[in-house]
């Protein structure tokens, strides 16, 4: 019997981010328009494994999902032990652009979720012309914090288990139990302080209020999709953000929470396929 191999392949990429050498792990599948996928805070690229294995997507898109430095199989840079990890708007933006440039991706589509969604908004603000389209999942210009991140990294509380328990409430009750627990497992596997360091970007450094008003969707189309069970980035947060951006396309996903691509892949597919079809069938702006 032939081995049951999945279609994606994984490789390590050497690249510099802000002048620092990194070894970044990514997986890819398919051909066509590059589609770079950004995982949520404290997680890794496995969240996108269903997209990477979906022939309906990979026949038109070259899907690439990389682990952010410090996440998954991307190790932290040399000397990591001497400081505290903190993701910033600048370092996150630099990592995405470095990945796209290192692989010589021509005007890729970027889709990110949660912090990945927030940084996609920043790409739309600051670097729109580099991208063919941008998709922000569970994204808003700002969200009200709902817990103290100090609990995420201290010796008397298991960081992986408390992270998973906190975010478990962001998954919709309808999501299949196996997908729910696979999503939680990735959070349980995060390195110490990494989820907390990602949230520095979310909570302190990445406030995009006012800035989103400058987004020009004629330069690069922007799509916002948010699950109705996400109480971290609520539907209202996303709709408020969308109201400030002329030409944006916004959709609230029913029976979905904060991790659409991994908590309920089948349901997410219903929402994302039409978006991807629209992107692939339209000419890139100013092409």
């Amino acid at each position, binding site marked *: 019997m032939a081995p049951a191999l999945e279609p994606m392949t994984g490789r390590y990429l050497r690249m510099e981010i802000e002048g620092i050498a990194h070894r970044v792990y990514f997986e890819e599948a398919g051909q066509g328009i590059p589609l770079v996928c950004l995982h949520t805070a404290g997680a890794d690229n496995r969240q996108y494994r269903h997209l990477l294995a979906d022939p309906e997507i990979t026949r038109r898109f070259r899907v690439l999902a990389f682990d952010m430095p410090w996440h998954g199989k991307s190790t932290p840079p040399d000397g990591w032990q001497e400081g505290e990890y903190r993701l910033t708007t600048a370092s996150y933006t630099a990592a995405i652009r470095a990945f796209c440039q290192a692989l010589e991706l021509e005007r890729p589509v970027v889709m990110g979720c949660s912090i990945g969604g927030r940084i996609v908004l920043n790409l739309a603000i600051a670097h729109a012309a580099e991208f063919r389209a941008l998709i922000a999942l569970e994204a808003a210009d700002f969200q*009200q914090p*709902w*817990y103290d991140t100090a*609990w995420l990294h201290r010796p*008397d*509380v*298991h960081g992986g*288990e*408390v992270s*998973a*328990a*906190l975010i*478990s*409430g*962001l998954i*919709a*009750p*309808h999501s299949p139990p196996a997908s729910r627990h696979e999503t939680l497992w990735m959070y349980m596997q995060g390195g110490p302080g990494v989820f907390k360091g990602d949230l520095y970007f979310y909570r302190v450094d990445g406030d995009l209020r006012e800035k989103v008003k400058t987004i020009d969707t004629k330069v690069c189309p922007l799509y916002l999709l948010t699950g*109705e*069970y996400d*109480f971290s980035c*609520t*539907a209202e947060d996303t709709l408020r953000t969308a109201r400030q951006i002329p030409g944006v396309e916004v959709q609230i996903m029913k029976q979905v929470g904060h991790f659409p691509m991994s908590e309920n892949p089948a349901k997410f597919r219903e929402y994302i396929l039409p978006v991807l079809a629209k992107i692939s069938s339209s000419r890139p702006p100013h092409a």
Partner: protein
Amino acid sequence: MTPAERFARLPGLLAADTDLRRRGRWLDVDCRIDIGAEPFHLVLRQGALAALERGPRLMRATAFSIRGTDEAWRRHWHKVPEPGWHDLFALAKRGVASMEGDLRPLLQNLQYFKDLLALPRRLAEED
């Protein structure tokens, strides 16, 4: 059944859930859960309920308290809760529940407590 009456069924619900007791096996704590105006004092030992006392207790020491309005618990315990009512922290964010005291044992066993406090969802709905 009122929300407090439903919560009073907790001993039977937890006794029937061997997996939840397994996950809580390291936990020993005394805590207080308020269902609307009614306090419940939980004595948890190795993840099992050693005691559940309903009503006020003078000067009762407790590690932490979780308080929620009647509406918060009633909607939290719908078989399929609505968005924003489906998680303890969603309730806290909307201002209908709160967590106070020494939160360390709560955070050390957070999934256990979330699942414990959702157990009344398994009772037949009435509304």
